[in-house]
C-alpha cells in the first residue's frame, strides 16, 4: 500500500487516472487530521480519519477486525469506530459518547460529539491507540473542509513488488503538485520505516541462520564423503590403476557429493514446501508473545510464505556447498597411491 498526501485541491480526475495504472488494486481518499478525543473519564491525542466506508473496505481490512459493534452499519448520527486499546484507555464501549476537539481549516478550535459504534483490534496496539475512524462527510462538516478536498489518497497494489514502479508513475502524474510542494507521494516503507527496518533485519537474520545451517551441512557432507572414500579405498585405487585420470576421480567424487546433497536438498525443500503450505493454511498462533509482536506492528497470528525464488536460491546454495565440501574428500582420494590402495584391507 502507498499513500499520497494532498495538501491542496482534490484532483478527482487524477485519482481516476491512478486507478487505471496497472497493478493498482484499489484507491480511496481520506480526510486526516490530528485531534483530541475525550470521554467522561479521560482524553488523549489521536489521528482522526474521515473515510468513505465503501472505498475504505476495498483498501483495508479494518472492518474485519471489529471485536464489538459494527462498521458504520448504523442509523446513529456521527458514528465513530475506535481501537480497543483506546476504548480501554477512555473507558468507553459501544454506544458511549466521545467528544472530538479539533482545529478547523481556519484554525479555530471546534468540537464534535460522536457515538462509538464499533471497536476494532488489530495486531498493532500503537495503531489501535492512536487512530479513530469517522465518516468523511462528518469530519468535513466539523472542520469546514471542502467536500471536494482530501488530505490523503491511499493506493493498494496487487503486490508489494510493484510499489516503486507505481510510485514513480504516480509521481509523474502529479509532478506539478509535487514541484509546488502541495503533494507528497510516500510508499509504505517511507511511511513506516521501522517496519521496513524490521523486515530487512528479519531477512538478514534468516541469512545468518542459512549460513550457519550451510556450514553445518558442509561438515556433514565432508564427514559422509570421507567415510564413503575410506570404505572404497581399494575401488578408487583400482580405478586409478586401470587408468582413470585424477580429474575424472575428482569429478566422480564431486558429482557423487552433489547428487547426495541434491537428493537431501530436494527432499528437504519438498518437506519445507508441505509444512509451509500447511501452516500457511492453518496459520501459526503466537498469542503467547502477542504483546511484544503487536507493539512493533507485527501480527501474532502469522501465515508463513516462501517465494519460489527462495527454493531455487537454497537449492543453488546446497549445490555450491556440496561442491565446496567435496574438495577436501576429493583431494584425500587423489592422494591415494594406487599401488597401496588396491591392497588395503577395508
Amino acid at each position, binding site marked *: 500500500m502507498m499513500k499520497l498526501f494532498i495538501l491542496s485541491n482534490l484532483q478527482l480526475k487524477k485519482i481516476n487516472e491512478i486507478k487505471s495504472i496497472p497493478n493498482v488494486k484499489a484507491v480511496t481518499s481520506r480526510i486526516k487530521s490530528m485531534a483530541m478525543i475525550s470521554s467522561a473519564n479521560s482524553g488523549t491525542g489521536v489521528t482522526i480519519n474521515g473515510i468513505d466506508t465503501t472505498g475504505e473496505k476495498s483498501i483495508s481490512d479494518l472492518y474485519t477486525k471489529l471485536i464489538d459493534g459494527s462498521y458504520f452499519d448504523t442509523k446513529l448520527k456521527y458514528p465513530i469506530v475506535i481501537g480497543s486499546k483506546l476504548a480501554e484507555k477512555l473507558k468507553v464501549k459501544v454506544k458511549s459518547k466521545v467528544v472530538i476537539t479539533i482545529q478547523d481549516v481556519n484554525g479555530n478550535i471546534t468540537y464534535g460529539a460522536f457515538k462509538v459504534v464499533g471497536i476494532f483490534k488489530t495486531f498493532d496496539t500503537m495503531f489501535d491507540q492512536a487512530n479513530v475512524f469517522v465518516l468523511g462527510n462528518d469530519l468535513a462538516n466539523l472542520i469546514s473542509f471542502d467536500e471536494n478536498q482530501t488530505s490523503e489518497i491511499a493506493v493498494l497494489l496487487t503486490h508489494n513488488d510493484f510499489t516503486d514502479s507505481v510510485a514513480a508513475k504516480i509521481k509523474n502524474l502529479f509532478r506539478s503538485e509535487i514541484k509546488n510542494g502541495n503533494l507528497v507521494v510516500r510508499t509504505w516503507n517511507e511511511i513506516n520505516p521501522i517496519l521496513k527496518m524490521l523486515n530487512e533485519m528479519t531477512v538478514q537474520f534468516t541469512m545468518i541462520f542459512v549460513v550457519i545451517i550451510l556450514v553445518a551441512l558442509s561438515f556433514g557432507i565432508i564427514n559422509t564423503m570421507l567415510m564413503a572414500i575410506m570404505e572404497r579405498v581399494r575401488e578408487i585405487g583400482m*580405478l586409478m590403476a586401470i587408468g582413470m585420470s585424477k580429474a575424472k576421480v575428482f569429478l566422480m567424487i564431486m558429482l557423487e557429493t552433489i547428487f547426495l546433497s541434491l537428493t537431501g536438498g530436494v527432499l528437504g525443500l519438498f518437506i519445507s514446501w508441505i509444512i509451509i503450505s500447511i501452516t500457511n493454511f492453518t496459520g501459526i498462533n503466537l498469542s503467547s508473545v502477542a504483546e511484544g509482536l503487536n507493539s512493533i506492528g507485527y501480527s501474532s497470528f502469522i501465515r508463513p510464505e516462501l517465494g519460489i525464488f527462495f527454493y531455487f536460491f537454497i537449492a543453488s546454495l546446497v549445490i555450491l556447498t556440496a561442491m565446496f565440501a567435496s574438495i577436501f574428500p576429493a583431494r584425500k582420494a587423489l592422494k591415494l597411491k594406487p599401488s597401496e590402495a588396491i591392497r588395503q584391507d577395508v
Partner: protein
Amino acid sequence: MSIIKTKELNKIYDVETIPVHAVNNVSLEFEEGEFTAIIGPSGCGKTTLLNLIGGLDTPTSGEVFINGTNITKLNSREIIDFRLRNIGFVFQAYNLVPVLTAKENVEFIMQLQGISKENRESRVLQLFDQIGLKDKLNNRPGKLSGGQQQRVAVARALASKPKFILADEPTANLDSKSTSNLLDIMLKLNEVENTTFIFSTHDSRVIKRARRLITLEDGKVVKDDIVK
C-alpha cells in the same frame, strides 16, 4: 623383440630410516606372448616389481621400457594414460566395482578409453564368451563366486586390448577348481590371441603351468628359467 625391458631397477623403501631394498638391481626382458610367473617367498619383492613394471610405483633408480617407451620418465598424467592404453591389471582381491554389473565393470575401462557403445557391446560379449560367463553379464559382483569374479577381472584387463597383463597373485583367493578354470582361460588367451601374461605368485598350481619362471629373493633375480 621384447615388449618390456627393465634396466637396473631398484626400489628402496624408507630410505631415510631403515632402508628396505624391495627390488635390487633387476634387469629383465619380456617377449610378446610370454606366460611368465614371478615367484619367490613372501616379501621378496614380487608385487613391487609388478608395480614398477605397471607404472603404479616409481623406482628409486633404474628404468622400465615398454615397447621402447621409458615409462619412468612419464609425468603422472602421461603414466595414467599409458596404463589405460597399454597395461591390463588383475588384482588378488578382484577389485570389481560392487555397484556395477559384471558387464558394466568390463565396459567401464573402454568408456575411459572413449570407445563407442556399439564397439564396447561387441567387445564385452566376445570377452564374456571367452571367459565362459555369458549368462552372468548382468550379475553384480556380489552374485558371483570368487572364481567368476576373477574371470570378470581378467575380462576387464583384456577389454582395453593392452600390450600385456600383470596379475598380482590372481589365484590367491581361489579354490583349486576356480584356479584351474582361470588358468585354462588365461592359457587359452595366451595361445590363441598371443596375450602376454606376467604373474606374481607362490601358488604351485600356477607355477606348474607357467612357461617362464623368474625367482626373486630379497629383491634380486636369482633364477630365470624357461620351462619346456
